[in-house]
């Protein structure tokens, strides 16, 4: 049984901002379907009353004081930028506001 169709993979890849080419989609879709099928076994394992565990540590309330620390210089901040311009990061045109 197929859990994850080729279209599903294409859709999820879009959500993840990966522009898969057709041949990649063909290759990955089959593997992912198999993997999802396998991880899906977990579905029936835990009863509804088992609490989820998102973290191994029982820590709470880890905070820092509101005190300024040195920032990077503008030059350091932009040192790895593919397209810096006037102290800012140049990015291609943005389609719509979030």
């Amino acid at each position: 049984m197929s859990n994850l169709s080729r279209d599903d993979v294409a859709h999820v890849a879009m959500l993840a901002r990966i522009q898969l080419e057709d041949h990649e989609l063909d290759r990955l879709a089959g593997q992912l379907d198999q993997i999802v099928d396998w991880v899906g076994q977990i579905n029936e394992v835990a009863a509804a009353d088992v609490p989820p565990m998102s973290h191994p540590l029982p820590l709470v309330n880890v905070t820092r004081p509101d005190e300024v620390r040195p920032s990077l210089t503008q030059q350091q901040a932009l040192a790895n930028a593919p397209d810096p311009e006037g102290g800012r990061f140049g990015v291609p045109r943005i389609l719509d506001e979030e």
Partner: protein
Amino acid sequence: MTATTDRTVPYADALTRYEPVMGLEVHVELSTATKMFCGCATEFGAEPNTQTCPVCLGLPGALPVVNRTAVESAIRIGLALNCRIAEWCRFARKNYFYPDMPKNFQTSQYDEPIAFDGWLDVEVPANEAGEPPFTFRVEIERAHMEEDTGKSTHVGGATGRIHGADYSVVDYNRAGIPLIEIVTKPLVGAGDRAPEVARAYVAALRDLLRALDVTHGRMEQGNIRCDANVSLMPIGSEVLGTRTETKNVNSLRSVERAVRYEITRHAAVLDAGEKVFQETRHWHEDTGITTAGRPKSDADDYRYFPEPDLVPVAPSREEVERLRATLPENPAERRKRLQGEWGFSDLEMRDVVNAGAVEVIEETVAAGASPAAARKWWTGDLARRANADGVAVTDLGVTPAHIAELDGLVTGGRLNDSMARQVMDGVVAGEGTPTQVADARGLELVQDDGALQAAVDKVIAANADVAEKIKGGKVQAAGALIGQVMKEMRGQADAAKARELILATLGVEG
């Protein structure tokens, strides 16, 4: 684009058929010294990308640490909005890609907000149509902590707007500044006053947040930003209509206008038997309309999950009570109390509030001035001076102590009103305290009745005709003589005393 082709119906007309339902989401930028998850400064207007670090640039390997003061501010805001404070809550990642968001997820809160289930009573003033003031209870769904994004500037294209731009440049100084998002429950029942309720709510919220001293609260700088959700329900129906979300409505006036516009637009769509399209809308301040933005879509699959790089926030009840004790009086209640204490009329009090002079008058009264004198100075003479100079009234260099001292000089009989204004000239010019200025300028009412009587006699002699009229019962003609007496005295006399002497000299009852 369909921007200019949207139809609307007249507002009053829409309200005969539909009940508006609003939901307001307000993002408040906190005025903490540092960002939500890193130690970068939050100064407004710094050179681009000079207040960034590995954390707020989303560099590989960087990890967030929560700003304690931001959490305290969030709790205080929650308490001031009569919310319940979570005993245990977490941050969550809201995943979506956007160039001004360094990690491509926003660290926010999802189903476990720090504050929830509150309310704020909002005073909606009388309107131009003569409808009376009323109080509307805005139910608060939640207030949660999150972080701001960077700021994009769109380059090229005809408009400088996002559409048609060639590319954009991003400054991440704002990325990571703490935000509190305050979300109302659906607001129903305001009828035709809904847009006014929206405005009054944002205004009340702004005043409350300023009183809490948690934000700079400057809407024009984006410290407070409002998203307005609007839908219409046919009157008599209980089914909520499809809503639109108008983003970034960033002035009080715009909040009212944008809600009003969306009501008229939705009504036109529904009247035509069509369906309102669920989407975000952009507000255009210049034209007063909204235009279609992004439709609700798959891109809204934010894949929230608990932020694994942070641990839960579990404020103890003692901590919550400690913070509750720091809450200031609710601004609306405080205004009511002060108005009573000061004996101001509604109109006078509104002037004071509009002038932003509540605090300074309070301090001036505390320094010993009468409330009336404090109000007269701060909303009158000083407000005019500040206006002329284009500065805030509190930036003139005049202190509440100065006003109290000056008021003492007037009530004590040393200065009259015109002399007091001259003294104020000197105080504003930085010549010293009112007493120092009065001394230096030799301003003092002449207390010697002999000199005043001589001046009165001289003026009566020179104006026999006027004196006759006064004797004949036209007491108000004395005004002309007072002016001349004051001139004789070079202003250094008490006008009331001069009047008294003129009448006495002429044997007339005052």
